[in-house]
């Protein structure tokens, strides 16, 4: 293969401040400890002020008698892949990065409701006309009610719109004629937002159906869980129907509520299983296939970049927020997740495998997904990445834990298998094979205790016909027993790659794909990593701010 610019190598040289990244020797213990970190200096200064004002200590990093003495080795910063943003590890912590939070919030606060049943109730049961004009009027009303405006009863409390200005509802339809006749402020215009061919296929699939995409306020999902979302949306939607179409009586209201809460509602996440019980629209219940649909990078970039952006999105959503936050609790797995979207590492490895596939098989989705092919691609992925860890000891140092490395290597194998075969099941098998056997027998070390247990059972489970084991890969997610932390990147990468290989304009749902192309979302899902970089630099404008409620606040 041609000698090309290796951005990963350039990044490693820069972050470790050395020209020779092949040397396995260095020096330790003389870098000034935690004082190497500007962030930690800032934290300590602030902690002292807080401790003084509240009378209870907080964050004692400068105390030598508490825990590990940080900074005994060189404290390297991180580049966020595809950007020029250099940041500290602390900047990628969930609580410290507002873009990561908003990414989750924008997904969690979204719900999609079919309007066709409600329109049928209006027409057939109540004898009302439904025309583009009435829909436009309804959309005005619903954009009053969803953010917290009252329409039916007097003397009800209303919400300060400054607090819910990120909340609104829009229309989505594949019917071009209807779309053109609607008030464009309320339309998610697939034709304008997607490349022509993708737009045509998405419109064809949605057809004449009409969907309302509702974003409840960020503050709503900060005071409650994802279970509030479809209920909030439905209640305010029912009220909007009542007001917009002058409807009275209990039975029609019940019908609207049934339509909005149950019959034609698309929540992004299902309720999770009892041991991990959470409401609908929490991240653990979101199927893997939706991640590539929520990610919008395919509208603006090449295939590999789209796959990388999807992996970053899903890896953060599932590993950092769901597993690290909801399930594990605490400060969580920043490093494992960061490994898939920092320092161009995953990008470089996947580029290598992309070329290898082109050379070996002649293109995407060109080879039959049998066991030998999965084995062949997995082996090449593992051997190449392990060679690179051998060649660059700083890379091994950067990926200092087995879970971090496995997250990367399994994803490379899964993406490569997906691209070569166009088969999502094969891509998942490759990821589990890497996790369960291939790396372990090379290095004599794997991930953490029991970390590969899910992989050992997942190979037979994936192809099993037992309903509790097997599931279409796109419909799987972390809400199954054979999933755990640092196991999210490879299914997302593999599934997304499989559909990219086949030229599909969406992964699981054209409706979800179109719903997240909405330019009014706070988080820009076209540029996942750039948005996270903004969060790291504290340049991201997030929603859910309550500053107007502070003493002296105005709004």
């Amino acid at each position, binding site marked *: 293969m041609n000698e090309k610019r290796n951005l990963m190598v350039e990044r490693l040289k820069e972050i470790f401040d050395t020209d020779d990244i092949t040397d396995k020797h*260095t020096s330790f213990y003389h870098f000034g400890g935690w004082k190497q970190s500007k962030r930690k200096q800032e934290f300590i200064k602030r902690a002292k002020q807080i401790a003084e004002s509240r009378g209870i200590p907080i964050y004692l990093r400068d105390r030598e008698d508490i825990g590990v003495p940080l900074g005994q080795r060189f404290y390297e910063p991180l580049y966020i892949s595809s950007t020029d943003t250099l940041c500290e590890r602390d900047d990628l912590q969930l609580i410290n990065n507002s873009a990561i939070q908003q990414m989750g919030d924008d997904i969690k606060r979204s719900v999609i409701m079919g309007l066709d049943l409600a329109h049928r109730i209006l027409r057939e049961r109540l004898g009302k006309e439904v025309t583009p004009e009435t829909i436009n009027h309804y959309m005005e009303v619903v954009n009053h009610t969803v953010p917290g405006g009252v329409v039916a009863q007097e003397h009800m409390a209303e919400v300060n719109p400054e607090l819910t200005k990120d909340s609104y509802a829009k229309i989505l339809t594949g019917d071009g004629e209807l779309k053109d006749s609607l008030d464009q402020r309320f339309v998610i215009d697939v034709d304008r937002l997607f490349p022509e061919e993708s737009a045509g296929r998405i419109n064809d699939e949605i057809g004449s159906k009409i969907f309302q995409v509702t974003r409840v306020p960020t503050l709503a999902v900060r005071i409650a869980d994802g279970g509030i979302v479809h209920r909030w949306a439905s209640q305010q939607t029912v009220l909007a129907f009542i007001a917009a179409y002058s409807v009275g009586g209990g039975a029609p209201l019940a019908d609207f509520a049934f339509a909005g809460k149950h019959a034609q509602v698309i929540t992004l996440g299902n309720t999770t299983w009892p041991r991990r019980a959470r409401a609908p629209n929490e991240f653990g219940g979101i199927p893997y296939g939706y991640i590539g649909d929520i990610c919008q990078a395919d509208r603006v970039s090449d295939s590999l970049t789209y796959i990388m952006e999807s992996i970053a999105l899903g890896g953060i959503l599932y590993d950092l927020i769901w597993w690290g936050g909801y399930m594990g609790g605490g400060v969580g797995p920043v490093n494992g997740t960061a490994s898939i979207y920092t320092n161009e590492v995953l990008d470089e490895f996947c580029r290598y495998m992309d070329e290898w596939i082109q050379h070996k098989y002649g293109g995407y989705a060109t080879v039959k997904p049998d066991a030998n092919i999965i084995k062949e691609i997995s082996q090449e992925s593992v051997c190449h990445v392990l060679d690179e860890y051998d060649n660059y000891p700083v890379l091994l140092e950067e990926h200092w834990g087995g879970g971090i490395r496995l997250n990367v290597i399994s994803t490379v194998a899964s993406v490569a298998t997906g691209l070569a075969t166009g088969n999502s099941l094969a891509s998942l098998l490759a990821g589990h094979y890497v996790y369960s056997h*291939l790396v372990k*027998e090379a290095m*004599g*070390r794997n991930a953490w*205790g029991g970390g590969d247990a899910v992989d050992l059972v997942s190979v037979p489970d994936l192809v*099993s016909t037992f309903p509790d084991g097997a599931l279409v890969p796109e419909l799987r997610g972390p809400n199954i027993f054979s999933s755990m932390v640092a196991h999210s990147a490879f299914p997302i990468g593999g599934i997304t790659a499989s559909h990219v290989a086949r030229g599909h304009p969406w992964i699981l749902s054209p409706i979800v794909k179109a719903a997240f192309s909405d330019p009014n979302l706070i988080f820009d899902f076209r540029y996942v990593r750039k948005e996270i970089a903004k969060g790291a630099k504290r340049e991201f404008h997030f929603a859910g701010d309550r500053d107007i409620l502070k003493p002296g606040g105005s709004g």
Partner: protein
Amino acid sequence: MSFNYPGNDRVASRRSTILNPKTEFRKIREIPDEELVLLLGHREPGSGYRAIHPPLDDLKLQDDPILKMVPPTPGAQHGDAIEFLQFTDSVYHSPLVPVFRSRLYSVRYRGVDHVTYSGRQLMEARARDLEKHAKELLETELFDPARSALRGITVHGSSMRLDENGLMFDARRRYVFKEGEVWYVKDQMAHPLDKPVSLGPPASEEMLIKNSIVYRKDTVKYREARELLDHLGMIFKRCLYGGFNPEREQE
């Protein structure tokens, strides 16, 4: 019982040796019992073992066929408390590495529980059993003071580059390199020791590589471990076909 690890290369051969429970590992250092107790940090030298129940001989036990089939270990017989021992192993050719520690413990030691991580390996056992196993693990060729380390807490370091003397990084600085030897100045929980304990000189790089059980560019390239890769592929295929159609796979 012998065990043949797949392949004929030197890594595979060394793995077979490691996993053979009859292998007598070469003793290369002597650690007095008192110093071993200091390093482990579970009790004061000369003090008795912490007990969690009376000796089994003093107890009236229910009739249990398992008791007849599995004789208790000395630690269990005496009612010792369960203590722990943890090693961190450098990727740069520690003589043992976590997965193979686990396999070695499983075929060699009775009455131990262990957890395998990527850089470290935790063993839990009755105190006197644990000390017996620790002695073998620390005094023989299974331990190199530069690339293997006792770490009960803050285990990070297995994948770090090495220091100027070839020692593995330790944020707690439990050991120092002095006059050609590695001296522990803290126990495995990083509590300072009153008296440093020497674990001797590190092995040469050549010796470490020669005895390495890791497939790497400076031992045997993983790509060249064809028999092993075929064997793993066979396991993968059987799991795959077995999941798809168990009855047919059994045929």
